[in-house]
């Protein structure tokens, strides 16, 4: 004879330690998620490369400036890089400025023109304003200081460059390798 089974509804009872464990795990996951979001929004930095052109009225172009290892060329390259270092290291972009490098000298009617590559690292969230900030800083400092550098009005000021191409240019100088002799400490 068929007897219907007795259905016993079993109530699922969570043990307190399981609840605590799940809560802790959820909170941890949430913390990691928030941490990652904060990291990517605030700290994750993107490298930006800009090309700029400067006019140096106080120097006349000489063929030495086209000779890669001439003292005149290497000396002037260093002087220009140092001036740009000073400009950005004393500005609001001091924590984001990485370096600058002269990539080319060109003759001009009244002096020399120098094409310079400038590298910045800035959190992604601030990247939108970088170009305008850098542009303003250069404009302001070059007008007010005694720098040998002047704005080259014949070209758009800061032009963004593709990263691989910029790194190619930044590493186009020969012979940089191991630092030697090691600096004594």
């Amino acid at each position, binding site marked *: 004879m068929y007897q219907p089974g007795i259905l016993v509804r079993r109530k699922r009872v969570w043990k307190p330690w399981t609840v605590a464990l799940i809560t802790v795990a959820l909170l941890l996951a949430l913390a990691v998620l928030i941490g990652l979001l904060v990291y990517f929004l605030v700290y994750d930095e993107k490298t930006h490369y800009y090309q700029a052109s400067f006019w140096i009225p106080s120097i006349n172009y000489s063929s030495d400036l086209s000779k890669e*290892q001439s003292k005149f060329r*290497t000396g002037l390259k260093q002087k220009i890089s140092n001036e740009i270092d000073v400009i950005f290291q004393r500005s609001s972009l001091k924590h984001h400025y990485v370096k600058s490098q002269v990539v080319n000298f060109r003759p001009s009617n009244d002096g020399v023109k120098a094409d310079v590559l400038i590298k910045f690292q800035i959190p992604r969230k601030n990247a939108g304003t970088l170009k305008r900030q850098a542009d303003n800083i250069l404009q302001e400092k070059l007008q007010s200081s005694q720098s040998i550098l002047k704005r080259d009005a014949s070209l758009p000021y800061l032009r963004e460059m593709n990263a691989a191409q910029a*790194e190619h240019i930044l590493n186009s100088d*020969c*012979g*940089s*390798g*191991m630092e*030697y002799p090691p600096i004594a400490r």
Partner: protein
Amino acid sequence: IADGKPADKASWPWQSSLQVEGIHLCGASLIGSQWLVTSAHCFDNYKNPKLWTVSFGRTLSSPLTTRKVESIIVHENYASHKHDDDIAVVKLSSPVLFSENLHRVCLPDATFQVLPKSKVFVTGWGALKANGPFPNSLQEVEIEIISNDVCNQVNVYGGAISSGMICAGFLTGKLDACEGDSGGPLVISDNRNKWYLLGIVSWGIDCGKENKPGIYTRVTHYRDWIKSKTSI
């Protein structure tokens, strides 16, 4: 490299490996985005550029990038039965993009002078000792320039060193280039930390043997030849 040590990342970013069927046969140095300098004797057995590939990066098993070879120009006066004029330039099928870990070494002017005892480095993936194993990771060793007069002494190389060669290592032996380092760079640093290609690994008797230091092609001697072939 006999008695050397593994090189750090980006220490020698011009060093490249010349390979046939994926086997490292010789070293070379990047002097322009599309040009290498190496030894002529590397091409004694395989003259066809299509057989060769070039790998860049510190380890042979995981290169940064590779290129095919478009052409090989061996010095006109080189002959495989002698050691003179052991220099060649190699044109890559396409230029490499320079980066922190891959860029060119400086070429010294023809007038560049180097004094005996100057500290120099030689690098390569050659054997770790005579008839020894070959490493996967680039090795380096610091050695000294030895004057051609000393190297030409009877108990050393007895007059075999010509003006187009430069001698480097120690008469006491041990630290030296070795088989498979051929074509690779012997470099010197100036006071601004720029490295210049002074020599090209060419020949020697055994590796690290007493009174038998390494003999390198003297790059300054061939500076005009390099310029004539590469415009660099």
